[in-house]
């Protein structure tokens, strides 16, 4: 899930009798499964929550380019290099769709970028972990994109039209990425002893961070209840995490890899795997800035933003000069 811990700006779930006439009509439209479009009435809390959620998702795509971009120049074959380039390019494209969706809510891409860089907006904790071997390109595709899909497939039905439509395009590409990642893992586990070691090591390092992507248990969260009522959050974090574990364990078995959890086991009664929760203390450290790569990731984004300033300024200046010349000629 690329949107974690999105704090609602409201005061929790508002009871129907406490809603204004407009808000009640708005909730009725959502309950009837209608899509909300940019010019439609929407409560301020809905708008602000969506900006945070879509913004966090967009930033995750952009920051998420970095750990995989880390291996583009070292990809082992021309085919792998092209596939990885295309994948990271898709992420830039996802960022673009999502920033556009957020712009329909009245916040510009530049404003959102500034908020990312000064820490007012977050991105997914997963991208604060390093990619250390080529097998990490497999593990990221398989586990990280796999976890993202769990969250994003239901979001295709989310109540806000531009977000739902962006998610339809994104999901198609994410499933492809997940298969690409699994394919890398297959090559690694069928390879040399060194490659198998890399594959197991990648799973060891990415398993718990992938589980953290869904966020902490939200059964008690009032924010989640409101987001679910607005249909901008479709499932609880725990439901999605369980679904991810249930789908991923057989895949790991197929690969001949061991999930780094001694207590992982199939539970006949529940029809699900029992598993060990990730270390939530680590999660809170990571989202508060103390992950292995937080500082480097933000510095890299800040540097790209600063280094590109002259280009953006020049493009605008040229467009203005061109328009002025055209006007003078008419």
């Amino acid at each position, binding site marked *: 899930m690329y949107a974690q811990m999105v704090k609602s700006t409201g005061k929790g779930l508002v009871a129907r009798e406490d809603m204004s006439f407009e808000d009640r009509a708005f909730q009725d439209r959502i309950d009837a499964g209608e899509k909300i479009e940019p010019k439609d009435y929407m409560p301020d809390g809905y708008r602000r929550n969506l900006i945070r959620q879509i913004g966090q998702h967009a930033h995750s795509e952009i920051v998420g*380019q970095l750990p995989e971009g880390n291996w583009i120049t*070292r990809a082992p074959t*021309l085919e792998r290099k092209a596939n990885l380039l295309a994948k990271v390019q898709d992420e830039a494209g996802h960022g673009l769709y999502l920033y556009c969706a957020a712009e329909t809510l009245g916040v510009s891409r530049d404003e959102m970028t500034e908020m990312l860089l000064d820490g007012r907006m977050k991105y997914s904790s997963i991208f604060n972990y390093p990619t250390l071997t080529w097998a990490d390109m497999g593990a990221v595709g398989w586990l990280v994109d796999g976890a993202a899909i769990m969250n994003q497939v239901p979001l295709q039905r989310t109540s806000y039209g531009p977000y739902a439509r962006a998610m339809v395009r994104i999901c198609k590409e994410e499933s492809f990425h997940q298969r690409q990642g699994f394919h890398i893992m297959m090559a690694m586990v069928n390879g040399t002893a060194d490659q198998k070691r890399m594959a197991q090591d990648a799973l060891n390092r990415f398993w718990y961070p992938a589980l953290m992507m869904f966020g902490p248990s939200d059964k008690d969260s009032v924010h989640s209840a409101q987001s679910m009522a607005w249909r901008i959050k479709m499932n609880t974090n725990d439901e999605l995490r369980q679904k991810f574990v249930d789908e991923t364990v057989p895949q790991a078995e197929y690969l001949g890899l061991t999930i780094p959890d001694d207590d992982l086991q199939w539970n006949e009664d529940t029809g699900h795997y029992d598993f060990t929760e990730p270390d939530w203390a680590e999660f809170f450290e990571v989202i508060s800035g103390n992950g292995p790569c937080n500082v480097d990731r933000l510095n890299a984004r800040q540097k790209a933003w600063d280094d590109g300033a*002259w*280009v953006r300024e020049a*493009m*605008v200046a040229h467009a203005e000069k061109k328009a002025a010349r055209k006007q003078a000629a008419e």
Partner: protein
Amino acid sequence: MQPLFEFLLRQGDNALVLGHRTSEWCGLAPALEEDIALTNTALDLIGQTQLWLGYAAEVEDTGRSANDLAYLRDAYDFRNLLMLEVPNEDFGRTLMRQFLFDAFQVPWLTALQTSADPRVAEIAAKSLKEATYHLDRSAETVVALGDGTADSNARMQAALDYLWPYSGELFADDETDSAMADGSIAPLPSSLRPAWATTVEDTAKAACLKLPESDFAHSGGRTGARHTEHLGHMLAVMQVLQRSYPGAVW
């Protein structure tokens, strides 16, 4: 070395080295649209590499593959232009280099479409579509950044001044080129200089940039005789997995 193999390595290595340099931008460009566009260019060039080096490997016929040629040769066996291996430095130099190369590639690939070697003609036809788009975009960007602000103009002028002494290598005919011309496989590169110069002069004018007067030209890339110091570092990164784990399948 067979002249045709040598010729194909030059085409493939140009695409590979520029594709690799361009790929270094992925995730770090000045704006998302530029990031996506640069990655497109890199992808096109890596695709062209596969075609040229794939054919080179067939012509060589010693059992090496396109990947072997890309990942298991050392710097002195590379046949790319020096201009393409120097570091990106900044967005301005990256786009200026792309433009100087594209301005050559478009007439060059246009001519190769009528090569007596049908495989060369086929690869050229496919690559030309991409190169034409690359030239539109790089020329437009050079004009925008040259014309934009005083700062951007100075940066683009510095990029042009830096790259200019490397541009002459595009037209340095040698025995391989003569053999290709004799076999009607490719024209002499020097024959394309007027077309290239026209594009470059027109674009520089629109970009408010001054073409350097010196006609000094570095050489040694397309023959492999003397690369820059930069290529070895690039290959050390690019080839690390193939070199560290010989025989592994990825």
